[in-house]
């Protein structure tokens, strides 16, 4: 595949994305909005909440005017939330909890390429054949055995049971 692969990956998803556009957003505009919002977050230099993103949208469109009710005047808050959530689900945005909601920061480009690749490589056994994964899958029996092994050894060492899952 050519080196422009990453871009193509984005385009591949567009038909699907257009199909599940939220109400109030013209179908063909969904992709444009996503890239516009990504652009806003990338140039912001700080985490933004969906509300802040919405405020900046017209500015992104016309160059100035923080509160201008321009082309995106009818864009509802929930639409912006839908789009940033979708970008988050795609791995393009990272989010942090801020009060009741979330603020969003763009993920750097290398990571985006890596995540897309990771999806692609994970899908085919042939493609992933040359990858050396840190661990292979565990059967239920193996998981039990593993816990026993580490617990057993723990009894002799009397240390901190750090291997046990923390949280979750």
């Amino acid at each position, binding site marked *: 595949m050519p080196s422009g692969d990453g871009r193509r990956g984005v385009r591949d998803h567009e038909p699907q994305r257009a199909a599940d556009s939220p109400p109030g957003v013209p179908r063909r505009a969904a992709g444009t909005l996503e890239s516009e919002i990504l652009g806003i977050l990338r140039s912001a230099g700080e985490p933004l909440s969906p509300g802040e993103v919405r405020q900046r949208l017209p500015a992104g469109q016309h160059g100035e005017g923080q509160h201008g009710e321009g082309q995106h005047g009818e864009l509802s808050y929930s639409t912006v939330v839908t789009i940033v959530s979708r970008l988050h689900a795609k791995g393009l945005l990272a989010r942090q909890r801020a009060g009741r909601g979330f603020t969003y920061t763009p993920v750097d480009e290398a*990571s985006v390429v890596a995540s897309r690749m*990771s999806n692609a490589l994970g899908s085919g056994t042939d493609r992933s054949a040359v990858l050396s994964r840190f661990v*292979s899958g565990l*059967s239920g029996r193996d998981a039990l055995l593993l816990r*026993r092994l580490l*617990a057993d050894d723990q009894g002799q060492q009397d240390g901190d049971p750090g291997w046990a899952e923390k949280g979750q």
Partner: protein
Amino acid sequence: MWLLYLPLVIPALAGMSARPLAARLEPRQATWLLTSATVALAGCSTAALALLAAYAAARAPFLATLGDYSQQVMRRGDPISAAAGTAAALALTGAAVAVAVMLRSRARALAESYRRAAELEADDGIVVVPGPAIEAYALPGGPGRIVVSGRLLDRLDNRRRAALIAHEQAHLAGRHHLFAVVARLAAAANPLLLPVARSVEYTVERWADEHAAAVTGDRRLVAETIGQVALLATPGRRRLAGITLGIIKPRTRRVSVAWAGPVPRRVAALLTAPPRRRIILLGASAAIVLLAGVAALEAARDLHALLELAQAAG
């Protein structure tokens, strides 16, 4: 003529002994032994098939006139039935196709891996991937990359991160993927060698584990890291949520991992003393592989002698 069947029997023997060998030998030694054994045995069994097919073909009248040898002598000295010869020819064709298909798929996978690795900008060769996955792998390339999901890194403390990275660095530095690819190619030529190829995939993991243990200076730390990541990466582990450290009271000290999957075996190996080099076991295994080679060579010489005899009479 039984010699001709020896190179076909020994791969089956190798298939059975690969796993015990992988468990006992020092990982680096095991990797080299098992990889070269798959290649050598695949070569021998392919040669044996070719010889069987050649014996059968030598009976054909038009070949006899073409090669100007006596068909009578050939038939008298020929212990291979036409059916066996045909079967060998078919197996040979199948092996050639299987190797070609495998070669194509692995070459593509490697080329793709190199291309992807080149696309990735990485500090110290490490790329952190966003998203919900719990995963870590070495991506071969020039230079290769270590890809780790941010979610996994978040769950590991600094020492365990170091263990994980050291493990993956060993894969890249030792070009471990090449051992696995070569062994798979050889196993494509002879499916009896498939368990040996799988064992190579295991021994390179052990090799990297031992490297990580040497770098961090803590075998137990590496064992715990593998255990933690494996449990995190396995979906449906909530089913086992009730089984925690306190609830399991093992009755026996030793937990048998002989028939377990690779992860418990790797952990168990790290919880015991470091493996020693075992010269005798290594030598014995190499000798058996050599035997297959000698047998194939002897059989080839027999055919050659018979042909010369037939030619003299013809």
